[in-house]
C-alpha cells in the first residue's frame, strides 16, 4: 500500500439553495484537516480533487422536482466525468436526489409518506460496505450506526426489477433500522421501499444516502458515526496508488 502523500482534497459543490456545504467543509477542513474547496455550481472546473461532495439543501429551490434543475448546472458535467473516471462521489440528502435526477444512481426520491418534514437521529444498518468501499470501507457488514436525517422528500422508490437488481448485486448499503438493528416499518422514517436509506452505483464509487454524515462528526453534536465515512474515504484514497503517486 502506498501512503497518500498529502492531505485528501475534497471539492464540495454548492448550488443556489444548498445548505450543508459548510458543515461538510467544517468536518473535512477543521475536524480532519483536509484541503477543502467549495465549488459554485456555475463553475466548470472541479479543480484538482480526490473526492466530490454533493451536499444537502434545496438546490434551485427544489422547484419542479428535488434535484431536477441542479442536474443541468454546468459543474454537473465535471462531476459526471469525475465519477465516470472512478472518482469517489457522495450525495447526501438533496445530493442523493440530484444523483438520481442526473441518472448517476437509479430510482427516485418522493415526498415522505406521512407528508411531514422529518429531522431526527436515525439508526441505520450497514450492508455490503465493500460495495461502496470508498465511503463505507471502515464499517462492518451489519454494523448499526446513528446519523441525523433532515428531509421532507426521502421516500426512495424504483420499480421492483431495479430494487431486486440493487439488492442482488449488494448495492443497497444503508437501511433504516431500529435500535436493535431490525429493519421494520416503524423504523422507516419516510416510507422508502424496502427501508432503503442509501445505495451505490455498480462501479462502487458513487454513494447516495438521505442521512447526513457531516452532522455526526463530533462528540459535541451528539455522535461521531458520520466521521467513519470520512475515515473510510481517507483510507481508501491511501490504497489507490494512482492517487497517492501523483501527490508525491
Amino acid at each position: 500500500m502506498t501512503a497518500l502523500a498529502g492531505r485528501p482534497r475534497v471539492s464540495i459543490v454548492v448550488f443556489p439553495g444548498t445548505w450543508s456545504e459548510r458543515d461538510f467543509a467544517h468536518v473535512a477542513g477543521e475536524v480532519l484537516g483536509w484541503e477543502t474547496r467549495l465549488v459554485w455550481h456555475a463553475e466548470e472546473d472541479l479543480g484538482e480533487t480526490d473526492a466530490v461532495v454533493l451536499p444537502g439543501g434545496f438546490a434551485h429551490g427544489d422547484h419542479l422536482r428535488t434535484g431536477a434543475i441542479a442536474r443541468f448546472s454546468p459543474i454537473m458535467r465535471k462531476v459526471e466525468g469525475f465519477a465516470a473516471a472512478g472518482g469517489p462521489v457522495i450525495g447526501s440528502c438533496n445530493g442523493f436526489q440530484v444523483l438520481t435526477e442526473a441518472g448517476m444512481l437509479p430510482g427516485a426520491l418522493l415526498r415522505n409518506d406521512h407528508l411531514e418534514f422529518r429531522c431526527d437521529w436515525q439508526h441505520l444498518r450497514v450492508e455490503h460496505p465493500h460495495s461502496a468501499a470508498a465511503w463505507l470501507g471502515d464499517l462492518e457488514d451489519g454494523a448499526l450506526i446513528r446519523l441525523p436525517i433532515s428531509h421532507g422528500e426521502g421516500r426512495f422508490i424504483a420499480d421492483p426489477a431495479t430494487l431486486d437488481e440493487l439488492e442482488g448485486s449488494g448495492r443497497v448499503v444503508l437501511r433504516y433500522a431500529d435500535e436493535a438493528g431490525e429493519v421494520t416499518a416503524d423504523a422507516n422514517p419516510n416510507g422508502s421501499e424496502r427501508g432503503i436509506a442509501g445505495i451505490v452505483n455498480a462501479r462502487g464509487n458513487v454513494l447516495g444516502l438521505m442521512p447526513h454524515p457531516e452532522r455526526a462528526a463530533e462528540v459535541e453534536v451528539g455522535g461521531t458515526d458520520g466521521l467513519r465515512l470520512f475515515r473510510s474515504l481517507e483510507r481508501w484514497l491511501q490504497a489507490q496508488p494512482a492517487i497517492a503517486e501523483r501527490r508525491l
Partner: protein
Amino acid sequence: MAVTTRWVAEVRVELRPGIADPEGQTIGAGLRSLGYAVDDVRHGKLMRIAFAADDRDAAEAQLAEMCRRLLANPVMEVATWELTPDPSAEAAADVGVVPR
C-alpha cells in the same frame, strides 16, 4: 421566411399508477370529511407553456422533448398534454409576423 406560430400547451404530470400518492390521499380524506363519497384522489401538476414552433408537428416534437428532458421524471411520473394555438392577441402582436 418561416412563419412563427405561437402555441400554448397544458402539460399534466402525474405520478405513475401504483406509486403511493400521500398528498392525493390527504386531499381525499379532506373531501370525505366534507361528506363526499370520494373513493380515490391522485394529485399532479399542471404547467401551461407558451412557446413558438413552426407547425403542430414541430410543437408536438418539442413538447415530447421538454417532457423527457425536464418536465417529468420517467422513474416516477407520466406526462400528457393538450396543444392549442395561442389564442391571445398579445402573443400575435409580440411576434408581429402572424398573418391575419
